[in-house]
């Protein structure tokens, strides 16, 4: 706060010190679970059973990670979570791309090509953001059955796209509302049509909100457990479901180190996405109109 005018009295410095101390303690408190998980995941089982949760690993090993990836038992099979990790990607990537693309088109149509009742349509779509997942489980299962998509990857993608559109439409609609309508009028006079205006004028300035939409959808769909467990068969399960099965499968001794490694593997992609694009996420959420 270099731009705050304040006299540097000893008391003021002391209070500043207290403030920082509190903040640092709070930060440590937040990061502690991650540290414990990480440390536990590289300890051999013998060190864990000694009851030393917070101690540093004496003989670090990657063995729990390889076991969690390729050998640990998830229910009846013992193939680790590796396969399910790729399953998750196969579901998340198409679902994110489709829901973002549809959301962008919806937002564009709802702001730049208003029609009678477009506000109502938007309000109804917004409603979709507040529907709890549990409510739609049965009707969705029925629908997927009719469509012949039960327990398939395509079915799970469809579910995520349908649920995601409410959010992505909201993002893009609020972003495009800030872009002057005159831009679209100018392009119409220049002879461009619906898709041409979207592609050439709107999309090139949408980078911030695309990042927001992608990060949001990626974490939502990656972290989803309920739809994954309800609508997938054994070979189409996402990693969250596999992690649950792995932790709940008891074959004698509880291998906490393997559980932790598996949990880390399952959480890694969202962590990576946040670290790489988190900056743009905040920037995109606060981005105002584009001044031409």
């Amino acid at each position, binding site marked *: 706060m270099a731009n705050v005018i304040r006299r540097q009295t000893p008391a003021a410095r002391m209070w500043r010190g207290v403030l920082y101390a509190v903040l640092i303690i709070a930060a440590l408190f937040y990061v502690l679970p991650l540290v414990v998980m990480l440390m536990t995941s590289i300890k051999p089982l013998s060190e864990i059973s000694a009851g030393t949760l917070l101690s540093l690993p004496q003989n670090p090993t990657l063995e729990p990670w390889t076991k969690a990836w390729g050998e640990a038992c998830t229910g009846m099979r013992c193939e680790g979570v590796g396969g399910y990790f790729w399953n998750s990607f196969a579901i998340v990537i198409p679902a994110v791309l489709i829901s973002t693309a549809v959301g962008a088109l919806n937002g564009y149509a709802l702001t730049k090509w208003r029609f009678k009742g477009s506000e109502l349509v938007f309000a109804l779509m917004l409603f979709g953001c507040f529907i709890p997942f549990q409510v739609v489980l049965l009707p969705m299962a029925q629908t997927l059955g009719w469509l012949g998509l039960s327990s398939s990857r395509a079915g799970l993608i469809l579910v995520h796209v349908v649920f995601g559109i409410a959010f992505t439409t909201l993002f893009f609609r609020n972003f495009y509302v800030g872009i002057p309508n005159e*831009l679209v*009028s*100018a392009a119409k006079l*220049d*002879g*461009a049509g619906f898709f041409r205006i979207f592609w050439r004028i709107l999309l090139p300035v949408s980078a911030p909100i695309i990042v927001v939409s992608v990060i949001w959808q990626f974490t939502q769909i990656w972290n989803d457990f309920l739809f994954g467990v309800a609508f997938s068969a054994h070979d189409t399960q996402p990693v969250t479901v596999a992690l649950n099965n792995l932790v709940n499968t008891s074959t004698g001794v509880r291998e906490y180190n393997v559980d932790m490694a598996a949990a880390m593997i399952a959480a890694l992609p969202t962590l990576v996405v946040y670290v790489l694009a988190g900056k743009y996420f905040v920037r995109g959420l606060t981005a105002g109109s584009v*001044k*031409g």
Partner: protein
Amino acid sequence: MAALEIHNVRKEFGSERVLKDVSISIDSGEFLILVGPSGCGKSTLMNAIAGLEPVTSGNIYIDGEDVTWRTPAERDIAMVFQSYALYPSMTVRQNISFGLEMRKVPKAEREAAVERVADLLQISHLLERKPAQLSGGQRQRVAMGRALAREPKVYLFDEPLSNLDAKLRVDMRTEIKKLHQRLGTTIVYVTHDQVEAMTLADCIAVMRDGHILQLGSPDEVYNNPVDMFVAGFMGSPSMNFIRATLEADGDGYALRIATPDEADLLLPWPTARHTAGLVEQLNKPVILGLRPEHFSEEDVRLSEQAEGTLLETKVSVVEPTGADILLRLPLGEQEITARVGPKCQVVPGERLALRVDMSRAVLFDAETEQRLA
């Protein structure tokens, strides 16, 4: 043949009627200005011409063809927007050539058009820049360049200068006028600035509440306004409206202006300006309209001296503008503005003799606000 003809156009938003039977026709090469206060329907009319908003009824013809139900792209018009509306992700070059590209003009021709327009507007050095890297005045030029590149039948300007600072606005105004004289384009121009309207137009349409009150040359609209609204809207400082009573004065008429604490003022109405309708207004209240420049200091000889009438009053405020001096002074029950030469030595509180050029005065009905004479 008319380049643009608007025939009985109406526009309704729900039950609200924004345009009420508007009809205008302008010839090729004419500069039409739509002027009026905000909410008068001028921008709606512009959007209707552009095809950005459908009309409720009526017809619009461009070059004799009925374009009422054609899309903006099919109308062969170009528009300069108040916010410029430059495509933010494109360079100046791409901005200018986008319309040509959409119309499938070959690349070589597009390049030639960009060069021609850039030369004309002196923006050749800016062609590779993005709009965000341009100043307000430069953006304005690019916006005009985008319109000029296509050489459409009609140009529409929607308050193009209102986002510029005062000095730049005057410069660009001159530039637009030069361009029009040079290229002979047909232009419809919306503004709420009556100075822009007076300086640029061949023809001014003064609008209010969805009606065109008066359509005429700047001279007509300024000197021969149809009602008090037009008279008050055009001109700055605006016309003085003085409450008076019309009386018989020998063969002709005179205006009696009741003045508190002093003897009533009697201004003879020039014989040359008699109209048939005046008889009916005898001994009724009327409004006398006098522009600030219709007053002058006593010693200056007026061109139409014959009917110049002398009046003396106390000056309350003196506002020198440099080029001339604006005086505020009480006349009858109201305070009026007079414009006198810069050499006038009067100080507030002093009495001053002013000559009134009654031959240029206008008279309105006090009730209907319509022009009487």
